[in-house]
């Protein structure tokens, strides 16, 4: 090991690896394409490598922590523990892929400097949030994420985009305020904001002031639920899909909604602790909310003809699997929820990549116009199909693994309605995903394509196609090789083994 480098700095470096390029890019001229792309890629690769380093360390049993005290008793702390790494690895690897995609996608469009700058900042916030060692740090990055994403959502500058951006801010900033109030109240009451595996609160203290803690819980939950798009707080998400495809991909798979879901995980798991939350009766509320959201999102997705909108509602539905999983008492459901955090990300990013390719290469944006696109873009639609089938939860795709553990967990937690919910959701997922797959492959061409032509050696620009294919293979691999130690499932099982869950 290099003696000069303090390994505790590793989490900080992970955050900085995208922050520095982000800031640097901000000050580049619009025409400095090479440098901008270089910085982006360097940051993405550096982050990836650092995360892998940290991953190995944690696998060996180390843990990393870096903290500075901001306020008395409150620290800004970045922690590389198992749970954090689950999320950080996801965002680091998907960021790498998305960067390639974004470079290809935005080629020739204006304001790329601003875009890539905030793109990097967005990931910075996500990784910071993932590694936040306490609620204070979490809140900081949670809010920073809002600001970092806003310019991305309004990137196109169209009135529609600006409206979507405003809606996004109204929702998320209100939520952020609620979250802050909740966090402060928690600190005032409990005197600690640290994330502790299994819960940081003292059950006796909670028993002493049950109403107060109940209020705190729902304040925090309310703050998180908006980003996690729990019904009825999901209204911003389908609107926000006006953003460019790489942004939607990041938004739905890695950054914003994931941050909300991860927050719910932290809330139930690292602050209150699932036993305490169950005892207080709040876990069941979360579970029921999530269950409702799962069904609701799927039903709403059914009738959306706009592909990205359909995907957006699908996110609403799928994301609640995570909340549902962590709200149940059984370890199996936690495994399911957490592993879905990763799986959903990989699958959904694939779907959005593909949607982007369709609109960029063929100008096809609606499901009803997708007839025969599979023959023109076989790789893209292949990737799409894999991801879509995974979303439905078919083995051996990643989605099945999540569903399997969730189902067992739900059934075992004496909440038998969980299984019908999962099944109904799968059914609905099939009902809105399979027709897309079918029309793409088996129908004849039924719309005018504004075909922008084949790429040098693939069906389209390789920077658009390869990321989609890569993530699709990842989605397949996460399921097919789920038994491996390095799969998300393997990692989650390790967490359980270590008692982190």
């Amino acid at each position: 090991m290099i003696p000069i480098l303090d390994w505790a700095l590793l989490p900080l470096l992970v955050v900085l690896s995208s922050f520095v390029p982000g800031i640097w890019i901000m000050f580049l001229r619009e025409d400095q394409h090479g440098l901008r792309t270089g910085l982006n890629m360097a940051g993405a690769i550096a982050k990836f490598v650092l995360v892998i380093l940290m991953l190995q360390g944690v696998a060996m049993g180390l843990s990393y922590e870096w903290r500075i005290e901001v306020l008395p008793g409150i620290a800004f702390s970045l922690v590389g523990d198992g749970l954090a790494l689950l999320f950080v690895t996801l965002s680091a690897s998907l960021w790498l892929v998305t960067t390639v995609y974004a470079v290809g996608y935005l080629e020739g469009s204006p304001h790329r400097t601003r875009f890539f700058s905030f793109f990097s900042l967005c990931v910075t916030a996500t990784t910071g949030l993932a590694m936040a060692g306490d609620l204070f740090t979490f809140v900081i990055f949670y809010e920073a994420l809002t600001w970092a994403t806003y310019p991305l959502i309004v990137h196109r500058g169209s009135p529609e985009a600006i409206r979507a951006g405003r809606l996004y801010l109204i929702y998320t900033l209100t939520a952020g305020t609620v979250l802050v109030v909740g966090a402060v109240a928690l600190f005032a009451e409990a005197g600690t904001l640290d994330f502790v595996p299994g819960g940081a609160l003292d059950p006796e203290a909670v028993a002493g002031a049950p109403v107060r803690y109940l209020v705190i819980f729902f304040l925090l939950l309310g703050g998180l639920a908006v980003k996690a798009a729990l019904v009825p707080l999901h209204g911003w998400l389908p609107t926000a899909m006006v953003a460019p495809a790489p942004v939607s991909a990041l938004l739905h798979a890695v950054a914003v909604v994931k941050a909300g879901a991860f927050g719910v995980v932290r809330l139930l798991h690292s602050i209150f602790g699932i036993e305490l939350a169950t005892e207080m009766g709040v876990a069941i509320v979360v579970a029921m909310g999530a269950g409702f959201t799962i069904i609701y999102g799927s039903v709403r997705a059914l009738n959306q003809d706009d592909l990205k909108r359909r995907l957006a509602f699908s996110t609403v539905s799928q994301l609640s699997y995570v909340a549902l999983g962590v709200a149940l008492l059984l370890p199996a459901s936690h495994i399911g929820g957490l592993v879905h955090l990763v799986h959903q990300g990989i699958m959904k990013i694939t779907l959005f990549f593909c949607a982007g390719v369709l609109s960029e290469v063929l100008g096809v944006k609606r499901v009803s116009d997708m007839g025969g696109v599979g023959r023109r873009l076989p790789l893209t639609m292949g990737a799409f199909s894999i991801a879509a089938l995974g979303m439905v939860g078919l083995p051996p795709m990643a989605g099945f693994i999540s569903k399997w553990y969730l189902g067992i967990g739900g059934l075992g937690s004496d909440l038998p309605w969980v299984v019908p919910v999962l099944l109904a959701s799968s059914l609905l997922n099939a009902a809105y995903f399979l027709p897309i797959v079918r029309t793409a492959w088996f129908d004849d061409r039924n719309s005018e394509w504004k075909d922008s032509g084949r790429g040098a050696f693939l069906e389209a620009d390789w920077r658009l196609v390869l990321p989609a294919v890569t993530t699709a293979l990842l989605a397949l691999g996460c399921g097919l090789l789920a038994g491996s130690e390095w799969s998300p499932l393997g990692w989650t099982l390790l967490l359980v083994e270590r008692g982190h869950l």
Partner: protein
Amino acid sequence: MTDVALWSTAAVAGPLLGAILTLVRGRLFTQLGLAVAAASSLLAGLGLTRIVALEGPGRHLLGGWGAPLGIELLADGLAVIMLLTTAGVGSAVSLYATAYFGDVDDPGMDVAPGGRAARFFTPVWLLLWTSLNGVFLSGDLFNLYVNLEILGLSAAAVVTLAVTAKATLAGMRYLLVSLVGSMLFLLGVALLYTAYGTLSLEGLAAAGPTGVVPAVALGAMTVGLAAKTALFPLHAWLPPAHSAAPAPGSALLSALVVKASFYIIVRLWLHVYGVGLVGAGEGALLFLGALGAGAVVWGSLLALRQLSLKRLIAYSTVAQIGYLFIMFPLLPEVAGGVAQEGEMGWRVDAWGGGIYHAVSHAFAKAAMFLAAGTMTYAVADDSLPSISGIAHRLPMSFLAFGLGGLSLAGLPPSGGFVAKWLMLSAALATDRWLWAGIIALGGLLTIAYVLLVMRYALEVRETPTAFRSVPRRMEWTAMALALTAVALGFRAVEILDLLDVGGAAPW
């Protein structure tokens, strides 16, 4: 000469010397004056901070004359923090001003419409700086009065530097309110002196003022100062004045000048009167808080209605001043009742939060005004529609504005966030949920009007407005201020520790 003496004298004398230097015509002297003022302020601030942090509060009797006739300078944690804030914001604004006002050596300057502003801004500003430092370091009430009066006069002068009728009217109104405020303050001073025969802050604190006369005195002083601070509903003069002043002037007025009178209120309530009187009358604290809450709502909603960029920011100042006063009802340790005698102290998170807000607001608001100044400089118009799409042309100014807004709205990571956190914490720890709600609501309203500007700035219009190129220095200084506001969000412990020196407890 002790270090305290050296630095505290330098803090006042430096800017004064600078002001005198700038009276000599020519760019050289203008810049020299600014440099002297900035350097002496910064050094004095840092030097005093070091002393205060290491040795505790420092005192210096100017010219060796003691009370009651001499001028006593006093530096504690609160004072040096305000001093440093002034030095930081002041230096950045000075730098900005040198670019904003262009070449003062230009012979056409005297007859040009903006020429008078360019010619006289620097001396007026340096005089202002002198009085600011004077206020922060004054150890007795009469000195405070004198400095306050100089402050009021020079601040009004800054407003009237612009030659338009609007600016003149706004300056006139500001001057009148300011003078009446000073009179009320002076009345309080007179009453206190009749009661206790001393004007030294420490002396008064030691006397533990109670009774009718001190109460009325405090009332008069507070209301006079509140009028100068533009606390709702005495704020009406502020939006026209702050928006009419030239951009660097607006920044100074919003960031620093209103803080000076606020600083005196804090001194009086927390230090001079202390728990003895104020603690007993929680109604007064609640009253100040209620005015503050009113300001937050009123100012924010009106900011949302503005079509002029600078007026919007000015109303935002009205709202943010409200925050400063929300601090007061949060001060007592226990909600809804009077604490036991003897163990009473102010909640450190409440007043720490208030001061932290004052500081971060100073940086953030200065950044916003400077950035707004840059934008209006570029398009030669102050209306929101005219800056549409400016985000793409002046990305750094836009960003500085955004970051300033971020801090203002109390979004992390920023000084504003820490301040809001502290105040919320004070509110929630004592079950003052209503105040917590107001604090949270204010943040959202702030976001709303910051967003209004952002939306215009980002909007792409087909017909681009005329655009004047902007000196880089103007962009950088605003950015530096914004970044400082953000950086304040990362390390609050030291500042709070420093604030604790000579702290919230009565002397």
